[in-house]
């Protein structure tokens, strides 16, 4: 999977936040539908971070530290990501499916939102009318995704009473939108500088990288909408342990795998 050459130079400027006007809008529209260019943009942003290292100078004044800590103390953590109701068993089979379906639908709304905005620029009044609805849907999408992926959300897996907790992953994949939400729990801790890599096993061809993840201290992790080629038909999903930079192909035995239910 490689980025489109005609956007190569503009992607660099975009990564530097130096692309403006129509060129930026055009690239925004393309990025909304091109996982390869999104991936290249992410890599270019990583490259720009290297430039920051060439800066040298004095340390910030001591007062800056106290100023920040005072400001932090004045802003206690809002429980926004902990709004999930513990009474709802999200991880029950039905809840899982429903929650993920809503998440994928809502995420697709977010994607379409980007393309839609470009079209509606021609008609400001129409844009204003729909913007509030878009915001509402986007807010709902974020709430759902935040609930699914928040590290402090209560996650309950119901299993037979005599079964010890087992590593478990659930992938929800919408092929026609290239949308993937993956949630895992009870994952064993990783060795240093390693990460779990999720693979989409297509019906034909080699496994496709579908995101890297590291479990939190409770063994939970998530991958939401990794860059994927358009329309890849999945036969199964699998997990291996790879170097934390990721690998284009599995280099270790498959630890977990599942096919469609």
């Amino acid at each position, binding site marked *: 999977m490689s980025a489109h050459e005609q956007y190569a130079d503009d992607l*660099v*400027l975009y990564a*530097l936040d130096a692309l403006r006007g129509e060129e930026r809008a055009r690239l925004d529209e393309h990025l909304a539908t091109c996982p390869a260019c999104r991936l290249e943009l992410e890599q270019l*942003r*990583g490259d720009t971070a290297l430039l*920051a290292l060439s800066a040298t100078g004095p340390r910030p004044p001591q007062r800056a530290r106290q100023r920040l800590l005072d400001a932090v103390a004045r802003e206690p953590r809002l429980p926004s990501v902990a709004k999930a109701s513990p009474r709802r068993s999200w991880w029950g089979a039905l809840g899982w499916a429903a929650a993920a379906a809503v998440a994928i639908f809502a995420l697709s709304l977010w994607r379409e939102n980007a393309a839609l905005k470009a079209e509606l620029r021609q008609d400001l009044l129409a844009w204003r009318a729909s913007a509030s609805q878009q915001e509402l849907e986007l807010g709902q999408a974020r709430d759902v995704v935040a609930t699914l992926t928040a*590290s402090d959300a209560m996650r309950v897996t119901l299993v037979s009473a005599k079964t010890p907790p087992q590593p478990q992953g659930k992938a929800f994949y919408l092929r026609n939108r290239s949308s993937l939400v993956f949630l895992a729990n009870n994952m064993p*801790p990783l060795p*240093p500088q390693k990460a779990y890599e999720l693979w989409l096993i297509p019906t034909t061809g080699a496994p496709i990288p579908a*995101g890297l993840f590291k479990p939190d201290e409770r063994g939970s992790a998530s991958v939401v909408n990794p860059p994927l080629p358009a329309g890849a038909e999945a036969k199964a999903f699998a997990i291996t342990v790879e170097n934390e930079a990721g690998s284009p192909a599995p280099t270790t035995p498959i630890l977990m795998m599942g096919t469609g239910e």
Partner: protein
Amino acid sequence: MRDFAYFFKKEIERLSSPQPQGISADLALVTGLKSGDQGAMAVLYDRYSSLLYAVALRVLGDTGAAEDVLQEVFLQLWRKPTAFDAARGSLGSWLSVITRNRAIDSLRKRRPETDIEDVILSVSPDLTGNVERASAAEKVRGVMGTMAPAQRTALEMAYWEGMSHSEIADKTGEPLGTVKTRIRAGLIALRRAFQG
């Protein structure tokens, strides 16, 4: 199921090796932020404030303005720690991108154009320790030093001054296409230095 669990455990043990856990330590601190741990913020500030302040100061050239950007970036992290996607990029790299963008916004006296949640970058070098950072910085300066002066200038104008390619072309008198190509080639040269 027991066989699977046994294999899984063995595979993890096989891959285990005693190495520093800088990025993992950052992840633990960000998890602390999510639960409101102010001490975690102090540790992250001590770890990255020098780097981020140097970036802001290089862009803005004014200590007061650089301090304001530093404050704003850390407060954004405090308010929205979930914006950091640990699967992509190290925290230091991510914060440096946000700091540079915010400093450019401040330099150009414009409202921030990009939400920090939209700043996603690929896995990049571990910058958690002073040694790793110094080594990476030396490598960056080495690559910059080998660039043709016109290429280095174009890249630095784009990065440190936030100039668009057309502004750079106007200032240097070079064609737009040449400027774009130079900036791209410069960044790719940096990438290759860290891949090799």
